[in-house]
């Protein structure tokens, strides 16, 4: 058994029979949604994948997996999304979902300053993982609640620029910038693909790993 894997972490070639030559090109990649509880991670994912929105989205326990396939610039892209639980203590489970992800969306709630602080901590944590190829996006969600805004877009933008992320204010409720956010990630991804094997730390996985080489949530 050969491991069908591109060089970049989180990318994956299709298994045989590979029919991808019928379409101009096919990519699937794994991304993870991180952020404080109630920031709107699940709502963003649900809006993007199913076009739905609920005022009260059930709290996520552990993590949930969703997929969406879309054409982006003549490329068919399959988004494989891990939507994680937001409560701080679930943070201990997060590494198994973000390790090996090709992209991470860090979500905060523009009406909640604490959630912005927590988003920063997520950025730090991901930077500490030292995967230079990880595409990171910062999403200031609930843009529809402009009157209750606590974090200005400029602040988010400045922090994102400082840390090499791209930034968008989104609203899962009105669908504002939701597709754009995911599209932008897809557009950024091929550029992030390195020339050689990703230099991510492959060693700090728990013993639950079946083989040392298996490091990705979606491979």
């Amino acid at each position: 058994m050969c491991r069908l894997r591109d060089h970049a972490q989180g990318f994956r070639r299709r298994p045989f029979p590979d029919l991808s030559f019928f379409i101009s090109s096919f990519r699937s990649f794994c991304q993870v949604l991180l952020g404080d509880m109630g920031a709107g991670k699940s709502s963003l994912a649900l809006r993007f994948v199913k076009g739905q929105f609920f005022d009260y989205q059930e709290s996520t326990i552990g993590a949930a997996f969703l997929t969406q396939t879309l054409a982006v610039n003549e490329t068919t892209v399959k988004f494989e999304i891990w939507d994680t639980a937001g409560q701080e203590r679930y943070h201990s489970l997060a590494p198994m979902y973000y390790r090996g992800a090709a992209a991470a969306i860090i979500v905060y709630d523009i009406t909640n300053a604490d959630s912005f602080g927590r988003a920063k901590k997520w950025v730090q944590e991901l930077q500490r993982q030292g995967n230079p190829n990880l595409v990171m996006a910062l999403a200031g969600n609930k843009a529809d609640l402009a009157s209750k805004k606590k974090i200005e877009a400029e602040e988010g933008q400045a922090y994102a620029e400082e840390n090499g992320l791209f930034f968008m204010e989104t609203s899962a409720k009105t669908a504002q910038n939701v597709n754009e956010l995911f599209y932008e990630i897809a557009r950024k991804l091929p550029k992030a693909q390195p020339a050689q094997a990703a230099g991510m730390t492959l060693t700090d996985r728990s013993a639950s790993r079946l083989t040392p080489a298996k490091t990705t949530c979606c491979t």
Partner: protein
Amino acid sequence: MRPTGVQEALSQVKADAKGFGNGVANGVHRESRHPLIDGVVSLEEKRDMYGFTVRPQHLEKYLEHDKIYKEEEVHRSNRWEQFLETYTSTSDSRSNGRGGGETAIEGRGSCWGSLRAVEQAVLHKHSGVGNGDAIGMCPWAEEVKKLVWEGVPVSLRGELWQIFTGAKVRWKDGFYQERLARDANVVKPFAGPVEKPPRLEKWASQIEKDLPRTFPGHPILGEDGMGSLRRMLTAYARHNPIVGYCQAMNFLGALLLLFMPEENAFWTLTSIVDVYFEGYYTEKMTEAQVDQLVFTQLMRERLPKLAKHLETVDVEISWFTGSWFLSIFVNVLPWECVLRVWDVLLYEGNRSMLFRTALALLEIHAAPLLQLHDNGDVLSMLQSMGETTFDSSQLVLSACLGFQEIDEGRLQKLRTRHRPTVIAEMHKRSLDVRQWRTINASSKQAINGTTNGSVVAPLRITQGEETNTLKPQSNDQRRLINLEDEDRSTLEPHLNGLKGLDIAEFEERHTLNYQLSAPKFFSYEPLVSNENHFKNEPYGRIDETDEFEDTESSDQEEEISRLRKELEHALQAREEAECRAEGLKHALAEMDQNRHSPVEMEKLKAQNAQLKQSLADKHEQESATVEVLVRLEQENRKADDARRRAVEKAEENCETSARALRRAADELEVMKKRALAAEIMLEAMEKRAVMAESMLKAVEQQAADELRAMEKRAVMAESMLEATLNFQSGSGPRTKRGVEPKSGALASMDSC
């Protein structure tokens, strides 16, 4: 003495085939019963009989199974009724009328008394005396187990769950109200510029966020229901600050509220989180992670083919089972299945049913999973397969029967084996964080030129009388670790002593633990870090929140307010501790009653040790047997493989010979064709030969004709010559001369 409550409830169920709402109504919601819970209305609203939304894509399948559910419900109601009728009188005579418990349901005139038979069976099971032992023997324990496997009738679920979890035994009058009342008089000694709300309020805001996100739209969780849930979760957070509030508990609590009154639900939740899921919902979720390693191993043993397949497509099962376990399958399986699984899980008194259910679920869906070879497809299927598993009986029975040997003993052993890995990993991660932070901090310091420590240190020392241990930031962590070691050494004798007495008495143990360590250990998060004592793990404080601490807390004022807050927490914690000390005294008094003399204690300890030894031996035997079985299975598999290979080879051989045959046939065909062609050619040649012959004959004929004609002409010429000669001269020389011209004429003719 007729147990009217139960009988009534049961007959109600039987009378009304779609009377599932009655079960719910039988609990606290008797008055506030919502019409949506009744079968017919619920379907219009796309809600199931428990009031939960049915996803439109599963509606058809749900309706199909709904009939089966109802039939099963009637059947099991009958069975339980029969059982209770048979055993009620027996158990009543044996009942020892344990105090305290009755109060749990007194207020609502329930049928508790009639369920003593079940209670005894559960007590018997929990006491661990059994397996043919005459003392404490409960003859119907086995029957209760079977009944639980088949499911608990909706009308009895609330009561039975409380019995199973021992909520009745834990019940303390006024305890719940006291936890809630503390709201009003939260001690605020430093009511100065503390911007952030105190620690308890952190839970409150989290609970508040999750309340409307718990089964949104469920008829039971209206304003009143949410109020109940809020109180329950708050009271729990105050009762056990080590856990506080963890997402998932909102779902567990809400589910309990569906079947019992608020205070009863509180005690049941307490029992589930403190005993069944000890160490699961804590800040570090250690046990939740340990269980994932255990499950991965079990899956490799029990479903090797599927495990291998998942490995091939790079999927780790723990990505899903983590959520399954933490939510106890709520929102993973259809509701009928969730409740059936809960019936068994709660009955058993531990969480081993999680493993069996997960294995059964994977086994049921193994075949289609094995067909998928794309990582994303497998992940999608694992995500969605739970909610399509409507056959609750198949799931529960294959879990209980198919994976019977996965019991708490086995799991404990495996957990002990895997726990160090998890703890080491967490330790390593927190070390990494510290290293990273040190590097960051030093680079920042190099830029700023001022150190935080020097500014902060005196402040901390002034607070030292209260906190006793706080030191400048740089040494802080190490100090805490040392402290904790000290704490552990002081604690261990107590813990061991307690272990010797009654392992099941979790709460007392952790109260003691808390009480002993809290005054000494007022740090940023005193209660959370106690988790380690509790586990007696060989690692120091691994403060998770640490990773999320701000790296650049250079602001002096911030420090002060932080310290203030710490102090406040400490005081609060102390208050908490005092409250607990009260309870502890109680418990100790009770324990003293049980402990007659040190000698007896020693005896008991010795007995305990013996029992442990024999248990260990048994486990060893069991594992040996399992090993043998595994080996046998492996051999079997090998043999199978060999057979398969042989068959494959034979098939291959057959194929090659067939191919050869086919090739030969092809060749033959070609030869035949060639032969045919040759024949045709031969024929053509023959024809040509015949033609040639006839041509030859014709030529010969012509030649002969010509010859004859020549001869004639020769004769004619001779005769003419002779005549000429005769005419010219005499006889002698005439003859001689006559011959010569003739031959000359012939030669000339030939040359012609």
